[in-house]
């Protein structure tokens, strides 16, 4: 982070916790997401990464504490979007998947097609525009999910392990896209359990284990000088629970 520069807060979480049926899944935690930065949520399987992203996006409501985000952009569009761990493809063509999302945020009908085509071109999917989205490969589906989210012009984009099921070349492609989005000023909050990916992409890191926020720091600090034994073990490749 450029030091003496005050940057806006894109998302602010305070004392948020979450439980289902009396089982505590997310223990009280507080943190902020700074505008324009890439926050990577790290943690082993079952740490609570997906839950945390759903809570931040508003798909789940915390049992206690607050999540502050501006749901609506001044221009009326939704200010944040989410890409899921397993892409959710509508039973429609690739193009119609994008126009449907645009229509949902009340983009005027006359602009739907143009903006959808723009998004598909941007992510190299125009050649597949008329194909049923569900018949695309895993990598193509994930790319479409990102294109569809990008089309909504979010300020803040949540991504839940966007490359978990992809091969190395598809992973590189997605990472390059995320780097571009970052360059355009989109704030990213993504989860991964891939340490290499976190090193390549993260500005800031949240390290979760067993539903608790164990460490929150800038990426360099986290990887070079982890403060907790759990983080050290995770970085060393030893599983923590």
């Amino acid at each position, binding site marked *: 982070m450029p030091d003496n520069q005050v940057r806006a807060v894109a998302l602010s979480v305070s004392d948020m916790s979450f439980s289902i049926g009396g089982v505590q899944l997310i223990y009280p935690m507080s943190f902020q997401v700074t505008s324009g930065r890439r926050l990577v949520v790290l943690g082993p399987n079952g740490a609570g990464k997906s839950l945390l992203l*759903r809570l931040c*996006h508003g*798909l789940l409501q915390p049992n206690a504490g607050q999540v502050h985000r501006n749901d609506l952009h001044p221009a009326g569009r*939704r200010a944040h*979007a*989410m890409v*899921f761990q397993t892409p*959710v*493809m*509508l*039973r*429609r063509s690739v193009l119609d998947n994008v126009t*449907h*999302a645009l229509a*949902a*945020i009340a983009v005027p009908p006359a602009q739907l097609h143009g903006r959808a085509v723009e998004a598909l071109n941007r992510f190299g999917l125009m050649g597949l525009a008329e194909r*049923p*989205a*569900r*018949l695309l490969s895993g990598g193509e589906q994930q790319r479409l999910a990102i294109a569809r989210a990008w089309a*909504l012009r979010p300020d803040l984009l949540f991504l839940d392990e966007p490359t978990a099921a992809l091969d190395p070349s598809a992973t590189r492609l997605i990472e390059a896209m995320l780097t571009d989005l970052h360059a355009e000023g989109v704030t990213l909050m993504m989860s991964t359990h891939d340490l290499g990916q976190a090193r390549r992409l993260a500005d800031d890191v949240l390290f979760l284990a067993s539903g608790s926020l164990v460490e929150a720091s800038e990426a360099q600090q986290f990887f070079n000088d982890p403060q907790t034994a759990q983080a050290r073990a995770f970085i060393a490749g030893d599983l923590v629970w």
Partner: protein
Amino acid sequence: MMDDASPLMAALTLIMHFDPVFVNIVQLSLRVTLTAVCLAALIGLPLGALLAVSRFRGRLAVIVAINALMGLPPVVVGLTFFLLLSRSGPLGGFGLLFTPSAMIIAQASLVLPIVIALTRQTIEDLWASYREYLQSIGMGPKQAILTLLWDARFSLATALLAGFGRATAEVGAVLIVGGNIAGVTRMMTTAIALETSKGDLALALGLGIILVGITLVVNALAFGMSRIGVRHAG
């Protein structure tokens, strides 16, 4: 009409010559059944979708009840509407008993549980995979239901065809509320049921052939529909 020729030959003659009485029966049957299915679709598709996406106390009981209604014996439905529509019944004032309208109402009631139950099942499956995403892009329940109904349209068409199949094949309900009046409420199934015993084998057999043909067409349509659905939507 049929001398000593075999009933089968006579039946084919009826079909081939578009015998007016014969054609009339087929037309009335199709009109009644198609109208009934459209009515059931109009009510059942939105209700089924609503049932799929909403959560309320007693929802499971409603689902079980509707599934049970799918197996309702047509004669019981017929009897119920006979009592409702007969002159002394609560709806007697409309004078609908022994009219095509009564048969439409009875058949729609038979088809409705099928449409609701199959719609609910189909939409619920799709909703399970769509729910988080649709919420994520900020869709309210009404928009979500429209999205689901549209994306499930091929499966839903199959549900309507299943309803059409049941309505075409049933005798009991239309016989009781329609009365099998020649030229007015005589349907294919009621004609077969009653004309056979009166010895008009040719008419019964001809109608039977048409019924089998319709069943084949309906099944072919349902099959084609699911194939188109996969090719179209994945």
